[in-house]
């Protein structure tokens, strides 16, 4: 038996370091940036110099400087603290709206790709119809039906966002289905669920994982965009998009109110896009990133 088996703790750390050392520069930089943003979100109460909701009418529309690093808004709230707390809201929204639909999208797509027939045909028609609408328009229509708010944004994205993953997983499954290892599993008489989910799924999920990094960015842009339109997260919650919307009316006097929260979105987006870029190189799925 090798020595590593006796030191599982050490070997894990070493393995982790080796793993990270083998990453491409874009994956390293992206992950580091993302880790920083996640840490900032987690430790927001300790890092933030002010209460994000505290209104200070003696410090209205203060430009960036000291003690207000990013300045203050029209109610005298500290923008830096609000941006930090905003990371908590936007990151959670990004994770939920990306990975919940991905889970059942991939399962549905892999299943449809494997079994084919009527199930596949019906699923593909539904996806065709969903994709005939611009995504934002459909979300807005569903929000018009259900009413604005975070919960309804989740519902509308859950209804729609799985379609892209189902398409990707189905297309990959159509290829995998004809390969020898699947035939072997069939000959061995394995049940269908085992062939699809134990043997097929690990081989069709890479394209979805790579796409999910782009999708994460798009979802943060989408939800903050909805908040900007007044259909998403309502003030006074410090969501980045709604902060930009609040700053819109003060562009002339106080450019920082809208600009600095937007920069937070851009940095998060760049981190995720770099991770997507690195994952695509690593998993060989170049064509599934958006940029």
């Amino acid at each position, binding site marked *: 038996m090798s020595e590593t088996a006796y030191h599982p703790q050490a070997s894990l750390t070493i393995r982790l370091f080796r793993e990270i050392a083998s990453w491409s520069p874009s994956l390293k930089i992206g992950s580091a940036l993302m880790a920083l943003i996640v840490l900032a979100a987690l430790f927001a109460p300790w890092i933030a110099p002010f209460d994000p909701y505290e209104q200070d009418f003696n410090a209205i529309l203060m430009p960036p400087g000291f003690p207000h690093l990013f300045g203050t808004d029209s109610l005298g709230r500290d923008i830096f603290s609000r941006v930090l707390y905003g990371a908590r809201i936007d990151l959670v929204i990004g994770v939920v709206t990306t990975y919940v639909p991905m889970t059942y999208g991939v399962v549905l797509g892999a299943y449809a790709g494997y079994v084919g027939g009527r199930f596949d045909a019906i699923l593909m*028609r*539904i996806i*065709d*119809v969903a*994709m*005939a*609408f*611009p*995504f*934002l*328009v*459909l979300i*807005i*229509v569903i*929000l*018009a*039906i*259900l009413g604005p708010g975070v919960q309804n944004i989740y519902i509308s994205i859950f209804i729609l966002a799985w379609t892209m993953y189902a398409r990707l997983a189905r297309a990959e499954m159509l290829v995998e289905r004809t390969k020898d290892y699947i035939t072997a599993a069939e000959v061995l008489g394995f049940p269908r669920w085992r062939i699809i989910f134990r043997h097929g799924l690990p081989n069709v999920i890479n394209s979805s994982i790579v796409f999910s990094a*782009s999708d994460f*960015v798009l979802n943060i*842009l989408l939800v*903050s*965009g909805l908040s*900007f*339109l*007044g*259909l998403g997260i309502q003030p006074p919650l410090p969501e980045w*998009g709604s902060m*930009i919307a609040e*700053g*819109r009316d003060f*562009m*002339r006097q106080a*450019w920082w109110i*809208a*600009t600095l929260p*937007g920069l937070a*979105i*851009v*940095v*998060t*987006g*760049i981190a*995720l*896009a*770099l991770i997507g*870029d690195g994952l695509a190189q690593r998993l060989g799925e*170049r*064509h599934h*990133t*958006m*940029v």
Partner: protein
Amino acid sequence: MLVLRYCLARLIHAIPVMLGVTVFVFLTIHLVPGDPIRIMMHGRIDDAQVAEIYRQLGMDRPLIVQYLDFLRHAVMGDLGTSLIQKAPVTALVLEKLWPTLMLLGLSTIFSILIAVPLALVAAFYRNRWPDHLIRLGSIFGFAMPSYWIGLLLMLCFGLWLGWFPISGLGSTPLEKLHHLTMPALTISLFLGPILIQSMRSSMLDVLTSEYIEVARAKGLSEWRILTKHVLRNALIPVITVLAVNISWLLSGAVIVEYVFGLPGLGSLLVRSVGYRDYPLIQGLSFVFAVLVVIVNLIADLSYMLVDRRVLKA
């Protein structure tokens, strides 16, 4: 003959999608939880008035009859009557259609103007610093919220420099172009990066093909190979990318129109959601879907012109 069959096949493929779209659009108002009319009127009307509105809208009849009626009217171009503006939805939509189409056209032109040279440079210097720089720029453009960059452009070129108007559309064609420049630029800043990356990879695919080897063997310069042989063949996937992204383009247009106060379909949609004007919302979502389907049809038909091989498939 082949051409005709291809066109027909494409048209027939679009029919079930369009039917599905009409079903969804029709169901919109029926999916509103509770009583849509009461919600829309904020409960300010009594039962008799509610019943009267339902009768006017024909919503007191069986669902299937209502759907067939909706379909019949939609085919004839009648999308109902706006409850708030008291005008035919079709007229309201058509009035706002042109600004949106102009915005889409101009954004597409800007995106291509940005993407083609940059993709060419990225492919020419693949995996060297100009390529990495363009890639970084693309990632930056992709990660920027369009409403945010719109506001910044407005602040910089509208308020500080005063080069471009910050809202509205103007009346003469030249004025419209002037008003649409910043919104179109905003859209092309996120569409451009997507185009650059797909064009770059299709150019690299073409670069590995045999006729490029032949061109190299002839002793042509790498730059000439790229501009003469690669670019032409790499433009085909651009049609696909543009068609696939028409839905993103329209989504972007909705937000950008709202930011720049352009009187287009997008800002009308946002406003009608505010008023909960369901017939107008139905009509607008229908028109958006029709636009997407038409653009995809045009893309399919234009492949035929670019690449005759699709006819045999």
